[in-house]
């Protein structure tokens, strides 16, 4: 546990030691705010729905950008071997890195709180979908992160890791969307919809915390962290 904490601290601090974190947070918040406010006053509804509708698409590019350097940079700088020879278990390194990027992403999501101030100051919103939307965003972000981390562990080139992360996230997102569901046999539709990253986010985003959605996101996170671990071990084996 101490090892996980040590790795977590090292990784979390490293985000703020480089300009990457500041650029990331700034671009994310400006883009989210700009897109949200451009429709908010025209729609005239006290709700964050338009912001949450954008999130799966914004995450598609932002989250792999956060994770692309997690393993690739270690490999490129040659610190991977050092990290792997330290007396810490691989699983602790994977969990520590995941928790660091998860905390960074959660912090970024929570920094959109001025939008909440706006809707409460100017209207009478239903707080259920707002709480659900943020919880869903954090869980969905966690799933995207685990996928991005796995993609980063496969390649030492950050650009390739980024593209791979985007492609896997996009695939797992689209599989549950209407565009794909319209084209699969009816008996498979419910399965594909369940598999999609976005349908569970929308379900929680209505303001309904459903154990099925939480189990799904934890399963995706667990699966890709496990794959990440196997990828590291196979590299060690070589």
């Amino acid at each position, binding site marked *: 546990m101490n090892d996980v904490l040590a790795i977590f601290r090292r990784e979390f601090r490293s985000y703020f030691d480089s300009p990457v974190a500041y650029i990331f947070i700034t671009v994310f918040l400006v883009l989210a705010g700009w897109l949200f406010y451009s429709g908010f006053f025209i729609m005239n509804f006290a709700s964050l729905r338009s912001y949450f509708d954008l999130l799966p698409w914004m995450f598609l590019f932002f989250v792999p950008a956060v994770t692309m350097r997690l393993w690739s940079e270690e490999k490129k700088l040659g610190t991977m071997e050092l990290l792997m020879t330290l007396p810490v278990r691989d699983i602790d390194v994977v969990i520590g890195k995941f928790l660091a990027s998860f905390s960074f992403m959660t912090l970024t999501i929570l920094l959109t709180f001025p939008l909440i101030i706006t809707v409460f100051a100017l*209207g009478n919103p239903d707080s259920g979908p707002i709480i659900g939307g943020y919880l869903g965003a954090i869980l969905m972000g966690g799933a995207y992160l685990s996928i991005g981390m796995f993609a980063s562990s496969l390649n030492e080139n950050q650009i390739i890791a980024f593209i791979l992360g985007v492609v896997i996230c996009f695939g797992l997102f689209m599989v549950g969307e209407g565009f794909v569901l319209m084209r699969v046999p*009816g008996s498979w539709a*419910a399965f594909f919809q369940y598999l999609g990253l976005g349908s569970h986010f929308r379900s929680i985003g209505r303001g309904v*915390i459903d154990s099925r959605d939480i189990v799904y996101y934890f399963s995706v996170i*667990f699966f890709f962290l496990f794959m990440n671990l196997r990828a590291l071990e196979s590299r060690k084996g070589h």
Partner: protein
Amino acid sequence: MAKRHIVQSSTQSVTLIILLMGILFFINILSYRLFMRADLTEKKEYTVSESTRNVLKSLGDIVNVTAYFSQDLPPYHAGIRTQVEDLLSEYAAYSEGNLNIEFVDPSADEELKARLARMGIPEVPLGEIKRDKQVISMGFMGIAIQYGDNGEVIPFIRNISNLEYDLTAALLKVKDKTEKIIIWVGESKTDQQDPEGHYFLHEELNKTFVVRPMAPAQVTVIPKRTSLVIVDGSSDLPDRALYAIDQYLMQDGKVIVLTDRVTLNPDQGLSAASTDQSIHGLLESYGISIAKELVADRSNAMAMFNSGMVRFRLPYPFWPKIGRLGFSPDNPAVNQLESLVLPWTSPLSITGQVDGRTVVPLVETSEVSWVTREPFDLNPQQKWDITEDDLRKSILAYDLTGRFISYFSGKPIPKDPSAPLTAGEEEETEEEIDSSTDQGRLIVVASTRFITNQFLSLHPENMMFLQNIVDHLAIGNDLIGIRSRQVTDRPLSFGTTDEKAVESKKTFHRVMGTVMIPILIVFFGLARTAMRKQAKKQREQGSKETHHE
């Protein structure tokens, strides 16, 4: 040897991954069947409502609910089946064992298909895409509710949002064998394409009631067993129709009157003039008058205008938009509503005697509302010449309950034109009722246009208002609790009428929400970098000094 080790390790990896996938698959299947939900929405929109639970608890006997769904529905519709299953299982849980639920696939049973067609559950065409082509397949998506000899059907479930209302209404209907009849006094305009028609309204009301339209000239008597009379005041009523409505009310009837005091002239662009109609005299005798004025409000809906070739949308003060604060907080028919748009409406007021009746204002405009008088200028871009003193709330709907005195008391009874007297025949005397007991119910709404096809497609929340007051009078408040949760509109409020102040508030929030935190983050980053540099410098100096020593 090394190669064998790698192969062994890879096989082990693949096995482990497959095993993990299997475990996760199993856990997800299990969680799909055994789940818990917490509905955080304010009005518990995704949980079976209190109203439905009360209806289910009071069933007292077995009611059979059969859902007819085809096995191979196109993907979108297959998703609806899952939601229907969830909802019906919740219904069963609250019914104390009185609800028998069954899912049946009628696709292969021709006899059953024919029976369903007779019951009113048709096989409907459903679109789907197969091999990049739009194809139409046929399927069943209906529900039948059976209690003894009484049956009700929901022919086709388009979406889940209205299903709780439809199901609970159907349960109430099968339990209560008496047919609930609404008499619609007004010209029958049931053409779906007619913007001024009432097709959508009648379609909705017919789900729960039997709506019988009666042209004003044909209204001579309203049977006592009628559940409710709705008077569409867009055309003038002959005296006999007024008498029939009055006498129905005197027998503790329930009446909704929709009326205008200003009529638009569609042939002359945007022009309007006040009108005197017989119904206004009837209402005045009950204590409600409608002024020859038009209400304007800063809280209003957008309207589309044509100017030659150009169409544009503008906020239109003559379409007042009622927000949450505009509904009576004590009346269950409206106190859960969030929005209503009443176009070209006039203010109502209490005049004369209302002894023996309670009079509750149901709907009122915002505080930043005013009235205009003849000649009316309906131009949306006119220069408004109003001061703070002109601003006042207007009441646009009243609910009256209690004892009503007949408008025709001491007056001759208008003749029934359908029974003309021939020479020598003796006039059959009708017995006139002078007053009701304390159970008369009357709701007056100062607009006829808000429930036309055109306005319902622009403002679906208007339907909710009308359905709620209809249910409130005709069947009590059993169903209102379900519908009022389907709130979609939570409008913004800037707390001021000054446009400059509104704009500056918008700019403040835009700046705060978009750039305030990023600026703070950049400052934080610069400060942190400066501190790190300082610390590094100090470390370097420290090490140099140590080196010199």
